[in-house]
């Protein structure tokens, strides 16, 4: 690690790593989702691809998607329709910039931005513009309603997501991701112990932002066919799901960093190469939780979704901020 790379080389290497990692994350989480749903709901499905455990199923799916025709509906708004998946991926890739894997500020993170967590919350909303574009440009009623629902959902759940992180920022005294982790490493316990309300609200709001069950109204197969992706096919279709899995990963990393101590673990020196493994273990637990909830809970109704956000999560997270502020100043 003593080799000093220039900024441009380092950036190029990190981009290459990210390019390799995003599809791998997509495949690992996709495979986990498939297997866990099979076990939770007795969906036997493709158990035999590749001989054992159906391990080759996702590769076969990928090859299938490559060969699929790219259909653009004749009534669609072509440029908007074509660029919508690109905008979704833009938000996904930009979110990886602040994923901290290791305390080294040069090699452990792409850029340790000063506004870290604030940037993450802002850039994660960009994907929703892509979703809205996809829904509108398809010129399909199902897509339109799906896109509008996605926008309404983002509006409702962005606030609890942002407000839930304020408690952590108050306790850490910084918005930088590395700073938040080192604050937790220094004090020896994760913020989840004091910010458990914030953690719970953050996870609920994350599920809604990712439009996963029980908050998947924008896709809602039984009501809207496939929501905003109804008219998509082939690789453009695949990108929406790749983005969803990659965002699941990024949001889990952010949740683990803010509330579970990131790559730090009690009694282990964070300077070693064990750090990324610890982080991935925590992320794995959170991703498992998301998949578990998806396959065991029914979908909420649209008005219940809005009521939950505006009448419960936002007031509770505001009270959480006030309590944290008082305790921080008094103690």
């Amino acid at each position, binding site marked *: 690690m003593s080799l000093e790379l220039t900024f441009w080389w380092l950036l190029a290497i990190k981009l290459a790593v990210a390019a390799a990692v995003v599809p791998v994350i997509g495949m690992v989480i996709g495979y986990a989702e498939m297997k866990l749903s099979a076990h939770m709901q007795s969906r036997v499905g493709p158990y035999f691809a590749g001989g054992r455990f159906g391990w080759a199923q996702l590769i076969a799916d990928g090859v299938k998607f490559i060969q699929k025709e*790219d259909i653009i509906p004749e009534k669609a708004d072509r440029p908007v329709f074509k660029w919508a998946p690109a905008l979704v991926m833009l938000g996904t890739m930009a979110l990886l910039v602040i994923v901290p894997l290791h305390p080294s500020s040069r090699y452990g993170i792409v850029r340790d931005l000063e506004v870290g967590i604030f940037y993450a919350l802002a850039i994660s909303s960009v994907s929703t513009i892509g979703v809205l574009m996809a829904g509108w440009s398809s010129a399909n009623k199902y897509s339109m309603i799906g896109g*509008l629902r996605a926008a309404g959902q983002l509006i409702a759940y962005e606030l609890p997501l942002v407000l839930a992180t304020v408690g952590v920022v108050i306790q850490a005294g910084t918005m930088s991701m590395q700073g938040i982790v080192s604050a937790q490493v220094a004090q020896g316990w994760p913020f989840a112990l004091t910010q458990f309300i914030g953690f719970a609200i953050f996870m609920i709001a994350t599920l809604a932002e990712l439009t996963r069950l029980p908050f998947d109204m924008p896709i809602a197969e039984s009501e809207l066919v496939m929501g905003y992706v109804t008219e998509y096919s082939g690789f453009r279709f695949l*990108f929406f799901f790749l983005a969803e899995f990659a965002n699941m990963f990024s949001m889990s990393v952010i949740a683990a960093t803010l509330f579970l101590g990131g790559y730090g673990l009690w009694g282990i020196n964070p300077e070693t190469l064990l750090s990324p493994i610890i982080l991935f273990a925590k992320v794995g637990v959170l991703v498992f939780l998301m998949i578990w909830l998806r396959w065991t809970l029914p979908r909420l109704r649209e008005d219940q979704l*809005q009521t939950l956000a*505006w009448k419960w999560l936002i007031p509770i997270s*505001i009270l959480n901020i006030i309590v944290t502020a008082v305790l921080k100043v008094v103690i």
Partner: protein
Amino acid sequence: MSEYFQDYVAVAAFAAFGVLLVALTLGITYLVRPSNPTREKVSTYECGVDAVGEGWNQTFIRYYIFGLLFVLFDVEAVFIFPWAIKAEELGLPGAIAIIVFILTLLEGLLYAVRKGVLRWE
């Protein structure tokens, strides 16, 4: 290049790379995939039957008041963060000031709830 601009360049590079990834993959798959659009394929999907009316029908967007409230509260969040970083230094006066600010907005939310604008029907 200063550290300050390196942050911006890194973010811009990753964002551009996201777009490039989509463009490149679609460019490569263009060589492999068939392209044979027929009338049925490119027609609007509506569960098999011919589409009724336009896809861009007028719809009642129920949440424009939610949208207005969202702007208010999002700006509020922007104001809370600078204080949150310096909470310890600013001490009790800072905490009282921000709590008054937050409670004012909470009262606004309560007013909206009591007025019934947050009902989704």
